[in-house]
C-alpha cells in the first residue's frame, strides 16, 4: 500500500489527458448526426448554452473534488459529504463502468474500419444496403470480439505504463494527431464542389426552431455526452493533478476544446454529405440516418461517401484513424476510473489493471455479439449519466455551495475566482436541468411502443429503472464495506490525499 501516487508532469499533461477524456466518439460519431437531426444551425445555440450552464460547472466540480480528496469516485463522495453517501460515488462509477464495457466494443469497430480502409476493403461497399449488411454481419458474427479485445488491451496497456509514461504520453500523441487528422478531413470536405450547401445547412439559424423544447434537451444531452461532465472521469484524472492546478481555467480549456473538436468533426462530415447529393432532401436523409445502433452515418454512409471523392481511400483511412484515436483516448480515461477505485479499495495498481482488463473484456462480450444488447446498454446507462450529473450536483449542495467554492475551487493557483453566482448555477440551474431532462426522457420512453414497465425491453423506462435499481440496491448493501475499505474504519483520521 506504500505505492507512490504519480502526478501529471505539467499542466499540459492534465489538459491533454482531460481533452482526450472529453473528445471521443461523441464528437466525431454522435455530434454530426444529432446536429443534422435537429436541422442544423439553430441546434448550435442550446448546444453552446449548455456547455456553460451544465458541462463546465460540473467539470469544475469534478476537478475540485478529485484534487481535494485525491481519491476515486467512491472515496471522493464519502470523504466529501460523508461515509453514508459513498454509494453515490459507486453509482456514478457503475454507470461509467457499464458504458466502458460497450464503449470498448465501439472502439473495436473503429479499429476494424480503420484497418479495412487501409487495406482498401471499404471500396467494396458501393451502396447503403451492402454497407449496412457488412456492418451488421461484422457487429454480430463474433468478428467484433477480437477487435474489442484489442481496443481494451491497448487501453489497459496504456494504464499499465502509469500516469506519466502511459496516460500523459498517449494523449500527447493522440490529441494532436486527432486534431491534425480532423483538420485534414475538414479541409478536404470544404474544398469539395457543393460543400457550401453543407456550410449553409450548418450555420443558417432558423430562430423559430428555438421554440421547440426538444432542441434544448438534445443540446443538453449532447453537451453532457460529449464533454464527459458528470462521468467521474475528470475527477479521476484530477487525483493526479498538481497541487496548484487551476480548476476553472482547465475546465474552460477542456469544454471549449471539446466543442471546437465537435465542430471540426461536423465540418469534415456534413459538407461531404451535402456535396455528395444533388438535392437537399437526399443529403438530409443521409445525414440524419440512424441505422443499426445509431451507426448509420459513420459506419454505413461515410465509407461510401469517401469512396466518391478523389483520394477517397486515403481520407477514409484518415477519418477512421481519427475516430479510433478519439475512442481510445476516452477509453483510457474510463479504464483508469475503474482502476483507481480498485486501488482505493486496497488493490495494487497492476493487479487492479489485470482485474479491470479481464472484467472489461468479459463485460463487453454480449455487446460485441448482439446489437440489441448493445442498444439496451447504451440506452440504460447513457441515460444513467444524467443521474450521475444529478448526484454530483447533490454532493455540491450537501457540502455547501459557498463552502465548496472556498475549499475546492477558489484556492491558490486558481487564477479565475468564482463568485456567488456559481452557487446559483450549480445549486439551482444544474438540478433544474437534470430534473427536466430526466422527466423528458422518461415521458419519451412511454411512446416507444414496448410496454414501459418491461425490464427486459431494449429501450424503455422499465429497463432503466430495473438496472439502476439493481445497482443502487447492491451499492447500498455494500456501502459500509466500500467506505471502510476506502476511508478506513469509522473514526479514522483521513490523511490528506487518501489511501495511496
Amino acid at each position, binding site marked *: 500500500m506504500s505505492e507512490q501516487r504519480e502526478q501529471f508532469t*505539467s*499542466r*499540459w499533461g492534465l*489538459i491533454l489527458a482531460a481533452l482526450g477524456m472529453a473528445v471521443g466518439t461523441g464528437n466525431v460519431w454522435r455530434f454530426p448526426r444529432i446536429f443534422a437531426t435537429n436541422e442544423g*444551425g439553430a441546434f*448550435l445555440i442550446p448546444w*453552446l448554452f449548455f456547455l456553460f450552464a451544465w458541462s463546465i460547472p460540473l467539470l469544475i466540480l469534478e476537478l475540485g473534488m478529485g484534487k481535494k480528496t485525491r481519491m476515486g469516485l467512491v472515496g471522493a463522495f464519502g470523504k466529501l459529504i460523508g461515509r453514508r453517501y459513498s454509494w453515490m460515488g459507486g453509482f456514478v462509477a457503475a454507470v461509467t463502468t457499464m458504458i466502458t464495457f460497450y464503449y470498448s466494443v465501439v472502439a473495436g469497430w473503429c479499429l476494424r474500419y480503420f484497418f479495412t480502409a487501409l487495406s482498401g476493403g471499404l471500396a467494396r461497399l458501393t451502396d447503403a444496403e451492402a454497407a449496412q449488411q457488412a456492418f451488421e454481419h461484422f457487429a454480430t458474427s463474433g468478428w467484433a470480439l477480437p477487435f474489442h479485445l484489442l481496443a481494451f488491451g491497448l487501453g489497459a496497456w496504456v494504464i499499465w505504463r502509469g500516469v506519466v509514461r502511459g496516460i500523459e504520453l498517449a494523449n500527447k500523441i493522440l490529441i494532436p494527431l486527432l486534431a491534425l487528422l480532423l483538420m485534414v478531413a475538414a479541409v478536404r470536405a470544404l474544398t469539395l464542389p457543393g460543400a*457550401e450547401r453543407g*456550410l*449553409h445547412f*450548418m*450555420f*443558417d*439559424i432558423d430562430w423559430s426552431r428555438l421554440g421547440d423544447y426538444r432542441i434544448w434537451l438534445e443540446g443538453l444531452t449532447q453537451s453532457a455526452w460529449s464533454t464527459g461532465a458528470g462521468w467521474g472521469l475528470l475527477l479521476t484524472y484530477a487525483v493526479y493533478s498538481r497541487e*496548484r492546478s*487551476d480548476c476553472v*481555467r*482547465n475546465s*474552460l*480549456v477542456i469544454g*471549449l*476544446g471539446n*466543442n*471546437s473538436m465537435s*465542430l471540426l468533426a461536423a465540418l469534415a462530415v456534413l459538407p461531404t454529405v451535402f456535396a455528395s447529393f444533388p438535392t437537399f432532401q437526399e443529403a438530409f436523409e443521409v445525414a440524419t440516418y440512424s441505422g443499426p445502433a445509431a451507426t448509420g452515418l459513420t459506419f454505413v454512409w461515410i465509407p461510401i461517401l469517401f469512396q466518391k471523392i478523389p483520394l477517397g481511400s486515403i481520407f477514409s483511412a484518415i477519418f477512421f484513424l481519427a475516430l479510433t484515436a478519439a475512442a481510445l483516448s476516452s477509453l483510457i480515461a474510463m479504464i483508469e476510473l475503474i482502476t483507481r477505485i480498485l486501488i482505493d479499495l486496497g488493490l495494487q495498481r497492476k493487479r487492479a489493471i489485470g482485474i479491470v482488463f479481464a472484467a472489461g473484456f468479459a463485460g463487453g462480450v454480449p455487446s460485441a455479439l448482439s446489437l440489441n444488447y448493445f442498444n439496451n446498454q447504451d440506452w440504460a446507462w447513457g441515460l444513467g449519466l444524467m443521474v450521475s450529473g444529478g448526484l454530483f450536483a447533490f454532493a455540491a449542495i450537501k457540502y455547501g455551495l459557498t463552502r465548496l467554492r472556498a475549499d475546492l475551487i477558489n484556492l491558490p*493557483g486558481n*487564477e479565475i475566482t468564482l463568485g456567488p453566482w456559481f452557487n446559483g448555477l450549480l445549486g439551482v440551474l444544474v438540478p433544474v436541468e437534470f430534473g427536466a431532462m430526466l422527466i423528458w426522457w422518461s415521458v419519451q420512453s412511454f411512446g416507444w411502443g414496448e410496454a414501459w414497465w418491461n425490464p427486459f425491453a431494449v429501450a424503455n423506462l422499465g429497463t432503466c429503472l430495473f438496472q439502476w435499481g439493481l445497482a443502487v440496491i447492491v451499492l447500498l448493501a455494500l456501502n459500509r464495506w466500500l467506505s471502510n475499505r476506502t476511508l478506513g474504519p469509522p473514526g479514522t483520521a483521513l490523511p490528506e490525499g487518501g489511501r495511496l
Partner: protein
Amino acid sequence: MTTGSIIAMVIILGGLWGGFAWMLRSAIKSEERRSSADRTG
C-alpha cells in the same frame, strides 16, 4: 450561403476556437510564470 449564415459561422467558429486558443495560451503563460517562480525559489 447567405450573409446571415456567414456571420453565424464566423461568430460561432471564431468564438469557440478563439476562446479555446485564448484559454490555452493563458494556461501556458501561467504555467511558465509558475515554473519560473519555482526555479527562483
